[in-house]
């Protein structure tokens, strides 16, 4: 499947791009699976997403937890805890 991935703040800097489309194996069912898959690709993703305690995720522009399901039609965003206001 092909998923749209979006990155912000220092996660964007570590990945080295603000967005990308990616083909994913069928066993990626949840946000948690997706992070594990990305971290297995290379150390760039590992450095950006490996510490799950500081990674926040939105699916289709809504905050979600790690157990949230993902499908190939989704836009999935990764970012550190937000600091607006």
């Amino acid at each position, binding site marked *: 499947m092909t998923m749209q991935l979006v990155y912000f703040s220092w996660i964007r800097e570590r990945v080295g791009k603000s967005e990308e489309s990616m083909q994913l194996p069928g066993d990626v069912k949840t946000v948690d699976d997706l992070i594990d898959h990305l971290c297995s690709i290379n150390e760039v993703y590992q450095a950006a997403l490996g510490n799950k305690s500081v990674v926040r995720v939105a699916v289709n522009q809504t905050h979600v937890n790690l157990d949230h399901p993902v499908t190939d039609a989704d836009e999935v*965003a990764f*970012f*550190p805890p*937000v600091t*607006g*206001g």
Partner: protein
Amino acid sequence: MARISVQREDFQIADEIAALRGDRTDMGAIVTFTGTVRDITGELKAMTLEHYPGMTEAELGRVADEAEKRWPLVGCRVIHRYGRLEPGDNIVLVITMSAHRHAAFEAADFLMDFLKSRAPFWKMEETDNGGQWVDAKESDSDALKRWD
């Protein structure tokens, strides 16, 4: 008019209040909160706010919806700036209007607490030593608990 604006441009508080009031006379209380770029140490040159276009507006709208559900507001306005801002510049404006002051004060406080922990903004501080991303504060997520 739009309740939510996410923009580079500055805002004028008096103009925003006037636009929100219109011809209405059924409110007895108007509360505004303005957040500005703070420089305590004198070392900050600028603060650049990055955001997630689309989600930012959606999230601010959800927070405003929730405030309107909890308090009898007759008006509600949120403006959040992004881009490169300098010390003293405005960052965020919240206006709440209600018949009575308690609802307006509480709703504005609620909006700021939720905005800080939900709206997808990230701040980078720029000093002579370069840029540094601002860490989220534990106290900001703790602040939500009093609204449970």
